[in-house]
């Protein structure tokens, strides 16, 4: 987990981003075909952030991804079939049919905290994990993500302030994707860069290109190292674009098409692959094979999830309380 990327790591990142994109596309297609249950979210455009940040963490570190971070779940070891099954409300889904779409995808054996709708409740939860590590003097850190919209909330600020005053080993990645649902940045806040909010609390802050997975990896690895050295929390603002609607039913007609086209040209998955091809790290042929592998993996996961049984209605009351 150094901050420079070895060739193998570069290929890893390409694999995880492509897997993420493939799964994301497949889920969108399923829902459009009426094979889904309820709604769902696409993280298209967020792959570099989700994968790069997840990849930069140590195995013992804790992460609390949000609803655009499919790639983070994958790179941290959550099996795609469990994710798809969750979205279909199946018994084998991460939440056994209890929570919806990308909510609740928590698994302590993977050091992943589940997502909760009330934004950004994952922030203080991840901070609490970081405070627990500090309390027990363990060399672990906790990382979470937050949207531009959520960076306006009080809880965002309360969390950063508490993290700073406790000098907790905590990293926050802001996924600034220009919109909170239909609301553009200019109607949400009067500042240019969300990173200035780090200064309001004495938190280390920086801005990165959220479509460049290497930049995400480097920034998060450095922040994690600082946190592990006891130098306190960091906030990393990753600029990107939400490439589809807020959720599956949303056509996002309110987003100017030129803006989308501009960001499409900077697609994080494609641009990373192109770069690796350019560097000679991967051939076009190997790349096609990688794509095919990802498609196969996703197809198998979907097949398994679709075949799996729904939960038994008699279990509805089980698990409210921990034993």
């Amino acid at each position: 987990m150094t901050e420079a990327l070895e060739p193998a790591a570069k290929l890893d990142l390409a694999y995880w981003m492509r897997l993420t994109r493939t799964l994301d596309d497949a889920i969108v297609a399923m829902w459009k075909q009426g094979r889904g249950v309820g709604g769902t979210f696409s993280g298209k455009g967020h792959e570099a952030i989700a994968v790069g940040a997840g990849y930069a963490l140590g195995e013992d570190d804790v992460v609390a991804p949000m609803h655009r971070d499919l790639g983070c779940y994958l790179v941290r070891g959550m099996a795609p079939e469990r994710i798809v099954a969750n979205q279909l409300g199946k018994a084998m889904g991460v939440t056994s049919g209890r929570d919806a779409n990308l909510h609740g995808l928590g698994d302590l054996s993977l050091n992943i905290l589940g997502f909760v709708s009330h934004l950004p409740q994952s922030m203080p939860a991840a901070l609490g994990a970081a405070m627990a590590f500090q309390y027990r003097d363990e060399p672990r850190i906790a990382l979470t993500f937050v949207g531009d919209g959520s960076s306006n909330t009080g809880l965002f600020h309360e969390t950063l302030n508490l993290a700073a005053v406790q000098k907790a080993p905590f990293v926050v990645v802001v996924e600034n994707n220009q919109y909170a649902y239909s609301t553009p940045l200019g109607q949400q806040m009067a500042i240019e860069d969300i990173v200035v909010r780090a200064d309001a609390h004495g938190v280390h802050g920086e801005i990165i290109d959220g479509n460049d997975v290497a930049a995400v990896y480097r920034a998060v690895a450095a922040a994690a190292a600082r946190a592990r050295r006891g130098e306190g929390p960091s906030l990393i603002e990753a600029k990107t674009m939400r490439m589809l609607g807020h959720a599956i039913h949303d056509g996002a007609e309110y987003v100017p098409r030129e803006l989308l086209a501009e960001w499409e040209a900077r697609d994080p998955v494609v641009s990373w692959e192109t770069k690796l091809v350019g560097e000679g790290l991967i051939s076009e042929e190997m790349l096609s094979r990688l794509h095919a592998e990802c498609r196969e993996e996703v197809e198998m996961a979907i097949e398994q999830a679709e075949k799996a049984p729904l939960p038994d209605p008699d279990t509805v009351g089980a698990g409210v309380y921990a034993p």
Partner: protein
Amino acid sequence: MTERQLTYLDAIAEGLMVEMERDPDVLVIGNDVGGSFGGAFKVTKRVAEKFGDRRVRNMPMTELGFVGAANGMALMGLRPVIEVQFADFISTAFDSIVQYAATTHYRWGAAVPWVVRAPSDGGIRSGPFHSQNPEAWFVHTPGLKVVAPATPADAKGLLIAAIRDNNPVIYFESKPLYRSLKGPVSEGDAAVPIGVAAVALSGDDLTIVSYGSTVHDSLQAATELAREGIMVEIVDLRSLKPLDMDTVLTSVEKTGRALVVHAANRMTGVGAEVASRIGEEGFGFLDAPVRRLGGLDVPVPFSPPLEDAYRVGPADIVAAARDLMQW
């Protein structure tokens, strides 16, 4: 003359527009309510098109702050109608509602005339955070008013009344009814008074007290029960605070049997208040215990078989009614 029919959703929008037309102090705030978008459920779409950005305002996703700001607007005489995107997110604005808005008139005599519109209720596979029915928190809190329309006419009429009311009113609209339910709605001013229940169906054998979407489950159950000769009277509370116990007790006096039904969690729900008041004030009328049906004491689950097991449905109502008729 056939009466004009509107969906529940269009009736809400119409109520809002009637008041905005009439009173320049009425404005709409909330997440994504304005611009060309018009809200997560499009309730304010035509409203935003008609009244523009000054009167239909997008807020940052900061419910505590913007409901808190609505308190100040209302103190200055504006009448903000606040949309929380889902009723589930009303908890994020909790202090601004239960501590500030609810207490201000009692404490220093200033009116806080706002309405929070809260799209509530489930049955549509939205999971634990987009299916809640949190009205009991607010019915328990002194100083608020709480309404929950079950029909398009009441959706329009209670919204008009809520906007005109000089107090903070929480208006729980039922998402599953938005487009599935149509009904007659009068044009123009058609306010429905807050605090008055309606008899949705007359019958002599058993009183079902309900509100919101479960009124329709009750109507469905009543049809089935009628086939068995059990004639149900359905009282649709419409207002949860203040509660119209007179209408409830009049019905129970006639029938001698009561079943209280709501979609919200049963434990310490509004049904507990209604049932214990029937027990206290209508003790002499009762031929059978007052039964309650409501959501299980469980977060609302997502998966269809689980959510169906969680929710009250017509079959549960039929079974409970049959059971009560055995007494």
